[in-house]
């Protein structure tokens, strides 16, 4: 296992280099002039312009720019935006907000998703099963910004249960956007749990468990569930990585200043360094959650061996 982890960590290096390079190239080949954009409608003196180009190495050819950037990364320097603010600072400020949103979404999808999946799976083709299948399909097929607006209008404006937008009111402000953000994954988790449970309920070892004289609750809850949760946990792990990377649409709809919003602003303002810096961070988060998921997979399923 230890050798496997080390090998995986080493494999991350080329993946990381390639991914960041790709993003770097894409961002810097965007049309438009970032320095001009910075000034907006105001006039800009040529000397200021020159100084900025100098500072951000904008004159260098792309590979050189990337080299300088990568060297910075090695020192833990994610670069700075055009106003001189370090990107790591932006991440530090925005990550907790994104993390809170992710936590709400994650708890929501884990508990409700798994529960709905189990209840649907144990009574296949029952009323609750049909309800889960139809409602999850609905959630999956509606675009998330529509879900967001609907939730804002219904629960925020009409019923007044939650703040409509922003994060001024503390934890409660995260509930509605968190649930919207988690809803699609919840639907997938419910469906995955359901189908996985149904598969396992038909397995021979479940019949054995019944033949052992165990209660139905134990047969389903321990023997079948322990196997059914393997793919669900894998999905949830990957999803957690995605959640921590920020949610551009949900954050925008609910006006939440998280990582997703920062990337969005960066793209609009053509601040290449911000976009690249945050995206680089997100790539790191992704790579580590994926590794964690793979390790967890071997822990959950003793048949998986990494050596």
């Amino acid at each position, binding site marked *: 296992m230890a050798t496997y982890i080390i090998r995986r960590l080493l494999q991350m290096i080329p993946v990381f280099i390639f991914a960041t390079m790709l993003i770097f190239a894409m961002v810097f080949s965007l049309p438009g002039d970032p320095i001009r954009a910075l000034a907006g409608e105001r006039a800009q003196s040529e000397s200021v312009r020159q100084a900025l180009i100098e500072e951000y190495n904008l004159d260098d050819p792309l590979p050189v720019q990337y080299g300088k950037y990568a060297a910075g990364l090695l020192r833990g320097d994610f670069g700075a935006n055009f106003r001189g603010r370090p990107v790591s600072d932006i991440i530090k400020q925005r990550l907790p907000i994104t993390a809170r949103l992710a936590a709400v979404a994650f708890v929501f999808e884990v508990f409700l998703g798994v529960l709905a999946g189990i209840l649907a799976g144990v009574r296949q083709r029952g009323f609750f099963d049909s309800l889960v299948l139809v409602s999850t399909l609905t959630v999956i097929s509606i675009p998330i910004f529509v879900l967001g607006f609907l939730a804002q209008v219904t629960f925020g404006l009409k019923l007044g249960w939650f703040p409509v937008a922003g994060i001024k009111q503390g934890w409660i402000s995260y509930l509605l956007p968190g649930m919207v953000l988690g809803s699609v994954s919840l639907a997938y988790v419910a469906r995955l749990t359901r189908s996985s449970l149904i598969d396992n309920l038909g*397995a*021979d*070892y479940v*019949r*054995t*468990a*019944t*033949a*052992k*004289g*165990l*209660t139905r609750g*134990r047969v389903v809850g321990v*023997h079948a569930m*322990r*196997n059914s949760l*393997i793919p669900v946990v894998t999905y949830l792990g990957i999803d957690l990585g995605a959640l921590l990377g920020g949610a551009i649409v949900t954050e925008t709809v609910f006006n939440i200043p998280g990582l997703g919003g920062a990337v969005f602003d960066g793209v609009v303002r053509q601040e290449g360094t911000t976009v690249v810096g945050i995206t680089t961070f997100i790539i790191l988060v992704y790579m580590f959650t994926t590794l964690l998921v793979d390790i967890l997979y071997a822990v*959950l*399923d*003793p*048949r998986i061996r990494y050596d």
Partner: protein
Amino acid sequence: MDPLLVVDDLHVEFRTDDGVVRAVNGLSYMVDRRETVAILGESGSGKSVSAQAIMGLIASPPGFITKGSVRFEGRELLTMAEDERRKVRGADIAMVFQDALSALNPVFSVGWQISEMFRKHRGASKKEAKKSAVELMELVEIPDATNRYRSFPHEFSGGMRQRVMIAMALALDPDVLIADEPTTALDVTVQAQVMQLLENVQAEFGMGLVLITHDLGVVAEQADRVVVMYAGRAMEKGTIDEIFDQPHHPYTEGLMNSIPRLDDLNERLNPIRGNPPDLLRIPSGCAFRPRCPYQQPDCAEVEPTLEFVGDSGRSTACHHWRDAFGE
């Protein structure tokens, strides 16, 4: 005293999209303590389904037990409340399945799966349960039992896995053990070892043993009585010696002729011609008629019932057994 286990006129059908699959059609037999009954039949003859019906393992839908009775020590199992029925499983009647790899839970250690019997049925502590489980693993001759306790099913060989299944079935000292083709998935030497083990534990525990097989050779030494099944019915019943000596049913004869004989290697094998019946459309009259070399016109009309041959309790379900096999 009531007989240990009585299966009486058992009918099981599966209502599928294609129609009604009549898997078991009036099967009757009984088993007593210290007795081994072999259920013999080709693939699809309803051996496993009848065993699962006894254990209450038929999923409904699609499976339905439409008729018959299963009595354990005089208590009717088929109409018993589920909670009571559950307590019969494992403790009174236990079962060993055909393919131990898929029948054991892949994510729990074998020791955990065996000890679960003691923890859940006897309320044993973890430590006591573990001790009992290791003892059982030693009883079924799993080498290095203490260390193997923590191994997972996929880490065992086929024969060892089947021993684990047997240990699990023996945990609560059941009165009846149903072994559904316990050696089919194993190679010949291992087969013999597992059969020997079953014989030993039966001698030690004194339970009634129902041995399901499609290979008469496997049970020849062990079985006291044989029930020959075809299309979900008993075609012939008798002691193992009687059956071996002279079958009194064309199907049994066919089965015997299709076994390779060590004492006569020159004799050609004669598999039974034709195919097992389509259980969606079982022929009228005798189900074996289309494949029977002795068939007569009346075989298509009246379904033969078991009738006694002599006075030993042996019986056959053939209209023409007298003409075919003499007295």
